């Protein structure tokens, strides 16, 4: 998967995030703009664009964007 594209999608979909400010190492939970709505947006986006389902428990265990990316990659194999 295209990591750059994934990060761009997050930046576009979450209110208030400056484009280009996120990296795979970003701890997304620590972002001021990340709230429960952002969680829902992420679940929907990953479902629609990557056809991968993330459970609530899995999402809670992720810290960095890389954790999400690796999870999607592992499900796609």
């Amino acid at each position: 998967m295209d990591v750059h594209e994934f990060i761009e999608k997050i930046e576009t979909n979450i209110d208030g995030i400056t484009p280009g400010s996120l990296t795979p190492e970003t701890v997304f939970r620590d972002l001021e703009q990340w709230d429960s709505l952002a969680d829902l947006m992420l679940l929907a986006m990953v479902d629609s664009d990557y056809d991968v389902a993330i459970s609530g428990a899995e999402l809670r265990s992720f810290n960095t964007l890389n954790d999400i990316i690796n999870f999607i990659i592992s499900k796609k194999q």
Partner: protein
Amino acid sequence: MKVTLKDVKVSGVCAAIPKQEFDLLQLGERYGELEVKKIIASTGVSKIRVAPENICTSDLCEHAATSLFARINIEPSLIDGIVFVSQTFDHIMPATSVVLQHRLLLPKNCVAFDIRYGCSGYIYGLYQAALLVSSGSCQRVLVCVGDVSTHLIHPDDRALRMVMGDGGSATIVERGDGEFSFNINSDGGGARHLIVPAGGCRVPSSETTRTATEREGGNSRSDENMFMDGMEIMNFCLREVPPCINELLDFVHWQKDDVGLFGLHQANKFIVDYLQKKLKVPKEKVPVALQLTGNTGPASIPLMLAHEYKRLQEENRFEKSLLCAYGVGLSWGAVALNLSETIIMDPVEL
């Protein structure tokens, strides 16, 4: 479970909401105006209707039913079945349906059932009524569905408080020349994701279960309040709703293009919009009508019809209608039917 039930029709639908309005912007003082506006933009709910303590679901349904009887000019004595679908019943016992039989002056030869479902409940109500009519048990069944969910929600549970509103409804299913086709599914494995854990026999009511404490995300509630794991419910909707609808379309041999209305449970704007995109159907076929009333649980589809029926009728959308609802249980279901001859009323207030 999939089935087609014959010789049935929906003759009328009426939804009732409490007069008392709550503007969610008032929560700005507490949670910050920007935050509240952001949530409103996502959920699509800016106001809700709140039933005061002395108004139960049965009262809203009774008002909807008497309004519907008057509108379609039918005597209560001609109703021989009543189904009440709700999580907010009048008493632990007896069933609310039998209490309503008396209050609505329905005859004593009437069969009365309560069915305990929430957001998916309209499909269950129509299914039970259609079974009673198509089997020949009943001539005409009154389906009362609704909830006063605000009575189950702790005022400090921000997540639920900003989407759930109160509402009731009445629908008449009777003998006719139509068919209803259903696809209904259950998964009790997800029961814990949407639950009021205490107050029944498993965890009886006690001082402890009535005491609210702070929980995840800063929300407060007791074990006798409603709990919803938003992420799990979102996942459930994404996973189950589109296949449920697609399977029903296959079952009745309808193409998506033929369907005029996909009437989805009005959970929140985010979910309904997302499902509309995932189903790949145009927006005008999937109404979102919850801005001023919120998610009214099982009443949300009848209330959406009440808000939208004029446009839907003008655009001839009712001949092939597919309604789909999903929620507590977990449970989800869809029905394909013709609503073009159905009398739908504007919402009534109590």
